[in-house]
């Protein structure tokens, strides 16, 4: 009954947070333990009662501020100087700028929206096929939730009770490998489709762009260095980045209009609520799932199938790839982690950090696939490329991501090398 209500509400298009809370209510009602209703609101508010989650609003504020301060455009200009003058140069610029933005934003959807608005029209003007431009932009958006900071990795860390900093750091190597793979792929596609060559900057102009971009570059570098170097918590890194963005925007670039700050904060607040409402609702859902002994039942089923941890991981990846195409990535993460984690660590002896990277990356790939590939639809909506041609153009990037997933699955050291 609960599953039917869950599916019916999802298909009806009811917001994910409401689906999770209502399905939990239906389950409690059917279980005969009405006393659980008295604790439901505590679970709902209590789902947000974790200090580590504070990194989410602060990184969203930092990302919004950096966009408002002209930092994004300077990072793209810097990428043009670095890689823009070869054949298909703007394709490399796209991926490289996405990797830099990933060190600020942490959300694939937000990053895809920002980068599609900037890169696709510019690439189209330069003679690139529009579908290819939109495809590589939304593929580049996948770097957002992998390269630190990352919203899904913060949420996984909170759910799995591993240090948030460890979880974020473990995304760095897979994120850089993914960025490098996308660069190679863009090069191959560019060579085969004869992408145009961009004009090189004159030396003096290039130097000017680099100097102008240095303060902007400082911000993502400072965020990653603070987290990776252990100089501060992700929350502190985010708050400091927001402060630095305000200072650079107001005093260095002089693009930040302080009267726009309330609007920036409101936008950040709404984006924060989109994520945290699902986190709160999922806390109720996770509580009900555990009450219903679902992890134990699934563990019995899976251990009956295999006792090999890699086969277990492959089964999980396949299930999550399908799930990721159907429901929102963060919701899927919060629904599945309380079920999978005890089995993965308790029965199969997997490292929770390794599991976190594999699970998150698998769900992130779902952002590019219909029917619910949110990043695909955001890029489609903004660029004007229809979803199906866009999906066709993005398929090579999905194939590379799945190949990388398999590598990460069998080589846990790639996820854990920086924290061991």
């Amino acid at each position, binding site marked *: 009954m609960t599953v039917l209500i869950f599916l019916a509400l999802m298909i009806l298009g*009811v917001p994910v947070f409401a689906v999770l809370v209502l399905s939990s209510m239906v389950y409690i009602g059917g279980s005969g333990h009405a006393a659980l209703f008295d604790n439901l609101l505590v679970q709902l508010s*209590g789902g947000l009662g974790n200090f580590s989650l504070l990194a989410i609003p602060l990184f969203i504020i930092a990302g919004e501020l950096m966009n408002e301060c002209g930092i994004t455009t300077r990072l793209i200009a810097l990428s043009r100087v670095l890689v823009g003058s070869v054949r298909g140069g703007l394709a490399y610029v796209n991926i490289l700028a996405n990797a830099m933005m990933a060190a600020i934003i942490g959300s694939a959807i937000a990053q895809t929206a920002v980068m599609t608005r900037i890169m696709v029209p510019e690439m189209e003007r330069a003679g690139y096929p529009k579908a290819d431009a939109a495809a590589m932009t939304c593929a580049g958006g996948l770097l957002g939730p992998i390269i630190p900071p990352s919203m899904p990795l913060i949420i996984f860390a909170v759910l799995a009770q591993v240090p948030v900093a460890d979880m974020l750091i473990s995304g760095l190597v897979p994120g850089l490998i993914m960025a490098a793979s996308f660069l190679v792929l863009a090069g191959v596609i560019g060579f085969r489709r004869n992408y145009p060559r961009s004009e090189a900057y004159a030396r003096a102009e290039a130097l000017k762009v680099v100097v102008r971009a240095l303060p902007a570059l400082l911000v993502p570098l400072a965020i990653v260095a603070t987290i990776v170097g252990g100089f501060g918590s992700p929350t502190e890194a985010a*708050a400091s980045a927001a402060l630095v963005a305000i200072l650079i925007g107001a005093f260095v670039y002089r693009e930040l209009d302080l009267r726009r700050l309330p609007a920036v904060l409101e936008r950040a607040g709404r984006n*924060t*609520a989109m994520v945290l409402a699902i986190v709160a609702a999922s806390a109720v859902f996770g509580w009900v799932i555990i009450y219903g002994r679902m992890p134990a039942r699934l563990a019995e089923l899976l251990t009956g199938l295999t006792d090999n941890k890699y086969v277990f991981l492959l089964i999980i990846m396949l299930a999550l790839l399908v799930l990721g195409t159907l429901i929102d990535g963060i919701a899927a993460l919060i629904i599945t982690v309380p079920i999978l984690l005890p089995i993965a660590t308790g029965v199969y002896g997997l490292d929770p950090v390794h599991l976190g990277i594999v699970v998150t990356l698998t769900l992130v790939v779902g952002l590019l696939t219909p029917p619910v590939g949110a990043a695909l639809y955001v890029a489609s909506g903004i660029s004007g490329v229809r979803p199906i041609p866009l999906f066709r153009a993005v398929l090579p990037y999905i194939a590379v991501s799945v190949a990388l997933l398999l590598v990460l699955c069998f080589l846990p050291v790639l996820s854990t090398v920086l924290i061991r």
Partner: protein
Amino acid sequence: MPPLSPTRPHPVTRVSRGLFALERRLLQALMAAILILTLVNIGLTIGGRSLYWAAEALIALMTLAAFVGQSMLIRTGQHPGVTLLADMVSPRAARWLRMASDLVLLGLSALLLVLAWRMFDLPGLLTNWRDPLPRAIETGNFTWLEPTNTLGIAKAWIWLAPVPFFAFGGIHALARLLDPQDAALLPQEA
């Protein structure tokens, strides 16, 4: 500010608009408070004397901001959801689906308010707010007696803070049902 709707809006819509304006200001203030308090605490920690209550206060502010924003997202229809079916059907059918979704949100708001009424025992609180212990013993509801670790207030105040926004979310959902075109006229982005 020009009128948002060319026709005379329904009274519920007018209330919803007023609440939305209030929520915008509140959300801006909450996000600013989260940023400022975090930065102040970082500065004080570097100076060797951090605010011991900051972590709990920040969590309370974040929780409240999430529910304020959640209510606003109901008004603007921006909550993430699976729109596969709505994208496939005719615009008329999509409108019906949207109305069904708003109806579900209205029902959820009502259910959450009923749960809040039961859990927080508001009539009991109003008559016993000076000393809630006898009432707690009488009813077996000890919600108001659990203290926060550092803020020095009952945890129930923090759990209670989002409740008005369940009601506001319900009013927004009702406004969308009564005046579906009005939400589209609201500023989607600040």
